[in-house]
């Protein structure tokens, strides 16, 4: 039995009806948003009496996640480029210390510049070793994680460095603009800039292409070494700004600021739908990943769980969300 009737081209199918469109919609890509709404509604109902929905509490969530959000914006670039940066938390700590000491010595502007310079230095060393020597970023930044926090502890002899400059403290973290905490504005600024650059500029596309298939990117004339260097540099600089936000909020520099933030930031980025293997990622997703973590922390505290219980529940929720979002 042989059929000869020519068939219409299969791949250019006619406009599908709504049901089919729903079926085709890749809901896994939106897991983070769905998860965010579900957790939010859940807490809103369960913790209504504990004031979860009060403006003060909601602003608090934003404020508490702001620094992680900032770090995670930089981390989105690194992971989308198929690299990792484990040194961001330590870099933030080192930058807070350097800023505090430089402000005490030379004043406000040199202090800020010194903080940024810390990020540039750490990022450039990370980026240089990864792109020029081809050492895996996991190892380079693992080493840098120890170096940065160790250096911060060393130069301060473990002592906190107070910051007495009120302008600095107000601008970086303690101040408000109207009802809105300055920290929230900082994170909004980084998210907005990060989102536009990643999705709407040549550089952003080249980062994604390099992470998606480095060989093909090379064959397309993209300088992938430079791209790898740049994402690690960005990550370092962004982490140093986060360090200054810690310094401003806590009015001091200390080597412990930022400890463990690398893991929260990586979790936020992956929850936000960026592929751990590179090639895809959105900064808006990262923002929601970070907010979701903040939401869970906040809700669990309001629910009266102690910190050990919080850790268990938070870990379980993160695994669940990533499991749902994974590709088949």
């Amino acid at each position, binding site marked *: 039995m042989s059929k000869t009737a020519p068939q219409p081209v299969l791949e250019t199918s006619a406009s*599908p009806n709504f049901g089919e469109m729903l*079926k085709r919609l890749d809901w896994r890509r939106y897991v983070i948003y769905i998860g965010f709404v579900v957790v939010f509604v859940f807490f809103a109902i369960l913790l209504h009496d504990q004031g979860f929905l009060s403006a003060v509490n909601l602003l608090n969530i934003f404020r508490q996640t702001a620094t992680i959000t900032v770090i995670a914006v930089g981390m989105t670039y690194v992971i989308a480029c198929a690299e990792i940066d484990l040194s961001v938390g330590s870099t933030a700590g080192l930058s807070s210390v350097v800023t505090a000491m430089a402000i005490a010595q030379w004043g406000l502007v040199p202090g800020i510049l010194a903080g940024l310079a810390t990020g540039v230095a750490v990022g450039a060393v990370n980026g240089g070793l990864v792109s020029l020597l081809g050492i895996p970023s996991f190892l380079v930044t693992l080493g840098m994680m120890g170096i940065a926090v160790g250096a911060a502890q060393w130069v301060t002899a473990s002592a906190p460095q107070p910051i007495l400059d009120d302008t600095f403290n107000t601008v970086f973290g303690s101040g408000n603009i109207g009802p809105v905490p300055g920290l929230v504005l900082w994170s909004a600024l980084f998210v907005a800039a990060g989102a536009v650059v990643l999705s709407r*500029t040549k550089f952003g*596309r080249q980062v994604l292409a390099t992470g*998606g298939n480095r060989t093909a*990117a*090379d064959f397309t*004339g993209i300088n992938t070494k430079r791209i790898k260097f740049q994402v690690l540099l960005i990550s370092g600089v962004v982490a140093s700004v986060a360090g200054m936000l810690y310094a401003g909020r806590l009015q001091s520099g200390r080597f412990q600021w930022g400890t463990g933030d690398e893991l929260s930031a990586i979790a936020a980025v992956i929850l936000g739908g960026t592929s751990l293997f590179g*090639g895809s990622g959105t900064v808006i997703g990262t923002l929601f990943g970070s907010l979701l973590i903040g939401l869970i922390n906040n809700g669990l505290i309001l629910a009266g769980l102690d910190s050990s219980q919080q850790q268990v529940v938070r870990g379980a929720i993160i695994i669940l969300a990533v499991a749902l979002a994974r590709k088949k």
Partner: protein
Amino acid sequence: MNTPDNAVEMRSISKGFNGIPVLNEVDFEVRRGEVHALAGGNGAGKSTLMKILQGVYQADTGKILIDGKPVAIGSIQDAKSAGIGMVFQEFSLVPSLTVAQNIFLASEPLARGLINDREAVRRAKKLFDEMEVRVDPKAEVSRLGTAYWQLTEIAKALSQNARVLIMDEPTASLAKHETEALFELIERLKARGISIIYISHRMDEVYRIADRITILRDGRRLLTERLSDVAPEQIVEGIVGRKIEGQLAYRARADLAGGGVPLLEVRGLTSGPRVRDVSFALRPGEILGVAGLMGSGRTELARTLFGIDKATSGDILIKGKKVAIGSPQQAIEAGLALIPEDRRAQGLVLEHSVRDNLLLPLLGKISRGPLLDLGEGRKLSSSLIEKLAVKVAHPNRPVRLLSGGNQQKVVIAKWMGTDPEVLILDEPTAGVDIGTKSEILDMIRDLAGTGKAVIVISSEYPELLAVSDRVLVLKEGSVIQDLPRGDIADEESLQLAVQGV
């Protein structure tokens, strides 16, 4: 209808992805001990049908019978135990293990609970003896060439008592003599009663080894016939869906710029052991074919011209001016473009959409200030898709989901968009159906017609002879002959030239 000599019978198989039908009530039977060719255009559904037989996908409807008995194939494991073996196009071997270890992976012979490597080697030897090929079972796979990988794959399938072997474009990366060896092996397997399903776009191979042929078109079976009962034109028309004539005939083209300054001139180019003192010149409108055996340095020459490998000496001149090409960026700036030989590894970001892939080299073109003009990008990518007739459901879908031929068109379209002065194509028709092949050849001719220069590297002599105005013959990295098309009588004389006789 249930004739017992059918090793495999697939009945009314339908399969769709996300609501898009890919296979439509396909019937397919393979007899015991026959070589059955499965043909069809790119995207016709050949690989999908075979993946259903192997348990990679499950059919939406339909039945599968093995040796006349209905079986449910729900996983690759099920398919293996039903006697279906596969020679994967993307090899399924572990490179760091030895040949013997790979063959018996997960079914290692044991001695007192521990893996008995010596026994594995002995059995592997026996398998290769039966296949009448020589492979060292103790060699580490990563150090062997593709031909040996393939033999290892076949041995692995046979060790699991495969009665049916599926080969999806097995000769794509084999040299001529390796292809011959494979064909002889297929004959021997056939004599042992093993059935072989052979997917290929190369008609000469199909004629050479297949007993029967099934043609799929747009997800339906068009025909199943003995090869002796169908005319070649009928097969070509069946695959392509229309008549194509004279696609592989050379047409002398008007000499465009005559003498003048060459568009591209290469002097004494050297890079590593595979590009040695290569010189040639290319005039505007000229198509240069590059022929040579595997390992003769054809791909390396392309890579050096495009700045991926660094030249250790020699000059490259564009329109008479010396250019420094140390990276693909510089090559692109100089007006070169390279369509690489491995589209999946080198040409495409598979997870990204067709549109993003097309626009990757064109980001500078669609920038407005610091930002990309997405509207302009959509327009540009749509016009490229249209120009090359790429079959895509939507430009936003990942390029990974396209069939092989359409992926190749995306790579070509991507580089056509950059409007290069010199286009280098490395095996541009690998894995491409005959209809698309003639389209690609026409495109190459059109491009040259607008005064650009084209370099075509190909292992398929008929195609090389069809487009080239001149043929450069490489051997061990050096140019051994630079032949005007008119001086090459036929395929055979080109073959002799390539062998350096």
